[in-house]
């Protein structure tokens, strides 16, 4: 149990140090050191517990509860005040609704509460901890180099890197706490801290846009927080429990009244995971510095949302609420994938893809069968690695080419070969056989097919859209013009290491996927569902195929071109040089330009996002009516 505390408290200590020691060299040392320690600790934790099943820790200390209460009150006041200061009254209103509720609840009933287990640890928590520990640490290291560049590019901004790293490490601590908590009040506490961290980091640059988007994020997340608080209070009054495990067990035993807190918690998960109609906050969050996007808004914090939904999967399985949750996820997957086609800003593409994949995970969680949960956990793992790799690559590229527009990334393979290859790995990792996300999608399809044909349809169409926007991006990267301009030399070491490790992990986790499944995921599934899911014999084949690609890619590039004459491209006979210029009218020398298709008339953001809001909101309404109808409310 000590190691759990260590994982929560150590980042806190690091954060405190980083805040008070604003010296670049010292900061660098602290970040490197804490990252290595955290990574080692999570790996150690895994070795310690991966075969132990679910372990509950009966840790109880009044002081902790009181401390949490005080911090919550302070945070509430802070949010209320900032809301007033920036005239975002909705944020203030929402916090005045939920904070008094939870504080009142804790003050009046808190002492009577004696949760059986405040903390727990199972393989799902372990997986989350691994993601937070390893990916999180790597991103923090990356942020060292990135933020230095960032402030070199943005002299107009005050260098508040100490605050930045402070929040990053606080966030890590909160995430660890979140995945280990069984007591929902604790979970709620960490949940609110991550919301606040996200708020502060989105608003880091303090531009009008950043502030607006930060408030958008916090307002939507507070909505979820309100539902969360409501769920806790309701649970207590309805069944006298505030533990996650008990909630699931009770629902499993047929206590239908507890479907309401399950629905409320799923709603909280959906807001956090930026599902439609709440997807806009995640898009807005892309104004934050890229490490923030990588850590909070793709690989970990938004995963907390789906973590909760997947946790609740056994309770959601087979219920109407579950179906509705799954549909929200499915619709979000399809529409977000389609919208991504119309986006040209790399970070927005990544954001929409994140929303889409989270949708898929939510859909799996809503379905809640063993196969679906298996697929969901695979998606969480693979998505965290590949997406964070892509964010980091985009961050580095942005600083070197001065743009995060995909259209500016043509010929990157010549200008920044290593980064381009890593991006290609990341992109392939996101949608292509034999990489991780495709394996997961495959699993998801197999999970859906026996339960919901609508989801099969949504997945079929959605993955077709994914294919389009990823491939066209990849095409931009690998377009070759023999051009020698080199931009890669100035990328700092603290960026290279995480990049390499991410790329390495993307491939290795794919290779080790059967091992990951059998040692980490299946032990989680068996006690809950009594069975496991696999992909069958195809697994082996897919592995062979995967290996073949990984080996062939570099080999083929080197050897396949022997004896080949290099010729100019075809330009209707009007070539002025081999690759880019042709003779135009009016005596002009015209440069070729090739820009991807965005198909606004089909996949326009406004139209589809509106459609998503309407569809998903109506799904919520239907759920509420249904609950009225069957008397849950």
């Amino acid at each position, binding site marked *: 149990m000590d190691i759990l505390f260590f994982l929560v408290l150590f980042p806190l200590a690091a954060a405190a140090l980083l805040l008070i020691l604003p010296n670049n060299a010292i900061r660098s040392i602290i970040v490197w050191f804490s990252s290595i320690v955290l990574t080692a600790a999570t790996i150690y934790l895994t070795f310690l517990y991966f075969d132990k099943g679910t372990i509950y820790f009966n840790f109880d200390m009044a002081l902790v509860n009181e401390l949490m209460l005080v911090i919550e009150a302070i945070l509430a006041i802070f949010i209320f005040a900032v809301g007033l200061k920036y005239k975002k009254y909705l944020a203030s209103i929402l916090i005045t609704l939920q904070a008094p509720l939870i504080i009142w609840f804790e003050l009046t009933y808190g002492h009577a509460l004696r949760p059986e287990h405040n903390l727990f640890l199972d393989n799902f928590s372990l997986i989350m901890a691994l993601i937070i520990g390893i990916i999180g640490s790597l991103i923090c290291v990356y942020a060292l180099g990135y933020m230095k560049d960032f402030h070199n590019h943005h002299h107009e901004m005050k260098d508040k890197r100490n605050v930045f790293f402070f929040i990053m490490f606080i966030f890590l601590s909160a995430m660890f706490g979140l995945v280990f908590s069984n007591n929902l009040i604790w979970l709620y506490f960490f949940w609110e801290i991550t919301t606040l961290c996200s708020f502060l980091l989105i608003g880091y640059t303090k531009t009008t846009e950043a502030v607006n988007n930060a408030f958008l994020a916090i307002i939507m997340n507070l909505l979820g927080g309100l539902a969360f608080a409501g769920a806790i209070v309701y649970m207590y009054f309805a069944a006298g429990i505030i533990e996650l495990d008990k909630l699931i067990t009770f629902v499993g035993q047929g206590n239908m009244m507890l479907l309401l807190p399950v629905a409320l918690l799923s709603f909280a998960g959906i807001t956090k995971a930026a599902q439609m109609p709440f997807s806009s906050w995640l898009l807005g969050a892309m104004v934050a510095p890229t490490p923030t996007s990588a850590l909070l808004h793709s690989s970990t914090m938004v995963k907390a949302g789906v973590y909760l939904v997947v946790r609740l999967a056994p309770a959601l399985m087979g219920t109407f609420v579950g179906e509705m949750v799954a549909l929200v996820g499915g619709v979000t997957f399809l529409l977000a994938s389609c919208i991504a086609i119309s986006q040209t800003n790399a970070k927005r593409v990544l954001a929409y893809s994140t929303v889409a994949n989270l949708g898929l995970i939510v859909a799996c969680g809503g379905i809640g069968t063993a196969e679906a949960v298996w697929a969901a956990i695979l998606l969480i793992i693979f998505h965290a690695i590949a997406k964070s790799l892509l964010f980091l690559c985009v961050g580095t590229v942005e600083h070197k080419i001065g743009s995060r527009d995909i259209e500016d990334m043509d010929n990157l393979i010549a200008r920044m070969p290593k980064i381009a290859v890593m991006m290609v790995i990341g992109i392939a990792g996101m949608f292509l056989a034999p990489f991780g996300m495709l394996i997961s999608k495959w699993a998801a399809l197999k999970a859906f*097919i026996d339960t919901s044909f609508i989801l099969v349809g949504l997945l079929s*169409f959605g993955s077709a859209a994914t294919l389009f926007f990823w491939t066209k991006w990849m095409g931009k990267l690998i377009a070759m013009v023999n051009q020698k301009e080199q931009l890669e030399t100035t990328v700092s070491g603290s960026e290279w290491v995480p990049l390499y490790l991410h790329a390495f992990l993307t491939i290795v986790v794919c290779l080790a996927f059967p091992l990951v499944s059998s040692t980490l995921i299946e032990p989680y599934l068996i006690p809950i569902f009594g069975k496991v899911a696999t992909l069958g014999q195809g697994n082996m084949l897919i592995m062979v195929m995967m290996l073949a690609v990984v080996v062939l890619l570099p080999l083929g590039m080197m050897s396949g071109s022997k004896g080949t004459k290099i010729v100019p491209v075809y330009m209707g006979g009007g070539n002025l040089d081999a690759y880019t210029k042709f003779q135009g009218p009016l005596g002009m020398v015209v440069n*070729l330009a090739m820009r991807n298709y965005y198909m606004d008339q089909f996949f326009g953001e406004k139209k589809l996002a509106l459609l998503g809001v309407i569809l998903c909101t109506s799904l919520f309404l239907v759920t509420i009516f249904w609950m009225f109808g069957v008397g849950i409310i």
Partner: protein
Amino acid sequence: MTTTAITAIIVILYLIGAPILGGILAGLDRIITARMQGRYGPPVWQPFYDVLKLMSKEKAAVNKTQNFYVFCFLLFMIFTGAVFFAGGDLLLVLFALTLASIFLVLGAFSSNSPYSFIGAERELIQTMAYEPMVLITAAGMYLATKSFFVADIAAFSTPLIYYLPGIFIGFVYILTIKFRKSPFDLSTSHHAHQELVKGLTTEFSGPTLAMIEIAHWYENIFLLGIVYLFFAFNPLLGVIVALLTYFLEILIDNSNARVTWQLTMKSAWIVAATLGMANLIIVFFKLSV
């Protein structure tokens, strides 16, 4: 003989036979097409002459990486068919197929040449257009037979077409896209006069182009294999229907103008969403009750 041995024989037969059969089909296609156009047409072996000719041409590319992608395209296309004819998982087959197509597209992208580029974009649109229907086909076959394995689907005793008529029609619809036949030969066309010159294949020449041709032969045989599955309860009927489908595609090719990419995408998605999904729903309820 063990089933493994039989599988191995089928796969080897496929590896050797598919290009021959595919080439002959292509030759027949050209003769039938010519006859429909009031011409005599080339000999049936013409596709082989073409490929052998291309092999003897100079090797060239616009950059060093381009031909590598085409090699991967061929490789994975063969792999796709091999897994299919080995009776493997249909979803795996389809994902491998997608991977293969993506390699071809990447090859075209990497050449950074205007017409290749537009060809690549259009190929992607086409892929996006047919992908849902392909997945729905696999899902429908699973719902009817309760297995994703081609071997089980082929061994299913009831005619699959009885359960999946809508999906069959939908699949034949998108097959026109996959065969690169008019009205959906957007990204590259067999015929000379297209606004994209040779689109996707503009920058591939000589031996590389020959590889693309061979890959298409493999692909066509594999696609006809899926058509066969719908009628697999009677192997002879299956083969006849597969050939008739091919003939139907030639007929469609010769009686239609090339349509725009908008219509291609819209119509393919509508077909998948109506015919495909409706059929899926019916099978879902009929077989689950």
